[in-house]
């Protein structure tokens, strides 16, 4: 009997991740390669490679997959993973989509539709109201709706996220102009200027619940993750389970998650995001109808392979049964390594990986999209890899993350590794005293070398140059934030 083929409509570390499980199950792995990814790690590790012009060209991907005799497609995250039109095209072509149905994606995709659905199913949502801002803002409508909700308020775009079309409003006088500019931004980003108002929580925590449904109305929750440490709506450090949650809040979250899973007859893996206020009250934010970047921390504390469950449900449903896990075991943390330099305003720093060494040891796991010698281009997302640790307690997990980062070495391009290392040493992170804008507002990252660092560096560099150091005579100049190998410094000097 011919081996069945699984194609991953994605790239980098998530493609490599799915390939691992697919191989373990004995399937043939098929990769996509778009221009710019020719040297990529996921291309090295595939049984078959199909060239496409873009990871977003769903028609071409389905056509090529069909031609190649692919049986199932895993969408990864981002790209086409939450596009119902892709699911429909895959299924119409007779292939299996390893994820939820297109109908579920439509039901939960729009923010307003999802909120209304959540309310209908008895899941708490933030006090909110829909408004329609057309052309000039309707001053009186806005004001009365806002007054009912209570300030501070967050104006959000109904058609999309990522911070676009979002404005914080602290009082009535700011409302009209904020609505006009938010709506204009939303039109430019998503083609739709519809906004809604939501009560704003000042120091929220972002807690999400991993779920898995059988598509027939039953499902399980696989506990929570804390993803509060974010920068510009990009997650940086994630944990499972969430520290410092009351049992009441935990159970409430799990029950709410299950209501949604059962209510929409959810199929495959998904994540429900909630926002928590300082009192521990939680509110539904949105549901992500896909596997998430930070799924490894859930795998570590449950001992499950979520990709394996997705493949089994899709390809051998007669053998599939929902997993049963009594309680999470130990604590897991994941950090995301990005090609950016936090000491230079988080500037993107693509380049070539000249020297690479990943940490290994007990409780250390690396999900990497890069290989030594690979040139990282600018056409794709800047996430390079994920470093995950697992340990018996949170204290120990943070110690282990600090160790793993101290053993990590990616040289030849810029990364946020030193920033991540500083997070692992932060007292506030250790105490769990963080909220979603903490990284931007309070975290004091100092990229400048300390006196100790300079002493060490001068000795190391002198060792490299073959001469030694007279401490008294050493002069050092800390030069601002100059880094890049390809930088040309203007002869005019700084302006």
């Amino acid at each position: 009997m011919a081996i069945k083929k699984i194609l991953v409509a994605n790239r980098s570390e998530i493609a490599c991740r799915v390939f691992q499980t697919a191989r373990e199950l004995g399937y043939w792995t098929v990769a996509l390669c778009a221009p710019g990814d020719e040297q990529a790690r996921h291309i090295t590790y595939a049984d078959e490679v199909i060239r496409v012009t873009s990871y977003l060209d769903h028609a071409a991907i389905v056509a090529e997959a069909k031609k190649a005799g692919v049986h199932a497609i895993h969408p990864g995250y981002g790209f086409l993973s939450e596009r119902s039109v892709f699911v429909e095209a895959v299924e119409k072509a007779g292939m299996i989509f390893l994820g939820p149905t297109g109908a579920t994606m439509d039901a939960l995709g729009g923010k307003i539709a999802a909120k209304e659905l959540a309310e209908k199913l008895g899941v708490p949502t933030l006090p909110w109201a829909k408004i329609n801002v057309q052309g000039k803002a309707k001053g009186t409508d806005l004001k009365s709706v806002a007054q009912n909700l209570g300030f501070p308020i967050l104006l959000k775009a109904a058609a999309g996220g990522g911070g676009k079309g979002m404005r914080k409003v602290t009082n009535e006088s700011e409302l009209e102009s904020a609505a006009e500019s938010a709506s204009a931004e939303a039109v430019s980003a998503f083609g739709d200027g519809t906004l809604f108002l939501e009560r704003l929580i000042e120091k929220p925590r972002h807690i999400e619940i991993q779920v898995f449904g059988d598509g027939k109305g039953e499902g399980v929750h696989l506990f929570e993750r804390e993803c509060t440490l974010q920068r510009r709506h990009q997650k940086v450090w994630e944990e499972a389970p969430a520290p410092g949650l009351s049992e009441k809040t935990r159970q409430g979250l799990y029950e709410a998650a299950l209501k949604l899973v059962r209510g929409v007859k959810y199929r495959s893996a998904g994540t429900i995001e909630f926002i928590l206020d300082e009192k521990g009250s939680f509110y539904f934010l949105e549901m992500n109808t896909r596997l998430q970047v930070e799924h490894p921390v859930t795998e570590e504390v449950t001992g499950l392979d979520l990709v394996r469950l997705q493949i089994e449900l899709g390809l051998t449903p007669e053998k599939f049964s929902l997993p049963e896990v009594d309680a999470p075991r130990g604590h897991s943390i994941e950090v995301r390594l990005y090609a950016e330099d936090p000491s230079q305003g988080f500037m993107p720093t693509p380049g070539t990986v000249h020297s690479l060494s990943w940490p290994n040891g007990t409780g250390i796991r690396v999900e990497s999209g890069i290989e030594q010698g690979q040139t990282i281009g600018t056409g794709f997302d800047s996430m390079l890899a994920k470093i995950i640790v697992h340990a018996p307690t949170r204290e120990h997990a943070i110690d282990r993350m600090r160790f793993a980062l101290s053993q990590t070495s990616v040289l030849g391009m810029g990364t946020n590794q030193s920033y991540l290392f500083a997070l692992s040493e932060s007292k506030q992170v250790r105490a769990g005293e963080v909220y979603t804008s903490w990284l931007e507002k309070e975290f004091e990252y100092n990229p400048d070398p300390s006196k100790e660092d300079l002493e060490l560096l001068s000795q190391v560099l002198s060792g490299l140059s073959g001469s030694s150091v007279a401490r008294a005579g050493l002069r050092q100049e800390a030069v601002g934030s100059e880094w890049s190998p390809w930088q040309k410094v203007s002869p005019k000097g700084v302006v």
Partner: protein
Amino acid sequence: MSIKIVLPENIKREAISIEERPGGWSVVTLENGKRKWIRVCKVKGKTSLSISGKLWHGELSEFGSDRAQSTGADHALDVFVSQFPGKVRKIVSQSGSKVKKGDSILLLEAMKMEFAIKAPKDGTVMSVLVKEGQLVSPGDRLVDFE
């Protein structure tokens, strides 16, 4: 993080040992006898180091060489020269406009991220040298500013 360390002229002749080991590691034995295992990478004349979770990019020059004579200003970052390959997504402050320190002048895009070129001090955007949608390379001058 990039630092420049200038080694002084009157240096002791006893070398600090550095040993290359398998796997791309080097071990430096410090003056106090402690060992540090590091990775070293030399790219285009600059030395990149990875020591215990911190990344450093250093420049090695002997005291008395031309490099060492230069002043700090010549080596400071010119924020109006592109540091990475990207695309000009939006021009926020037009040619001739007055800006305050921290104001965005233009937005660049690379790796699905937006990066703002900001005014390092109060001043005037004399001329924006690029167009929206234009692709830029490292070293391209973006803005004339005073």
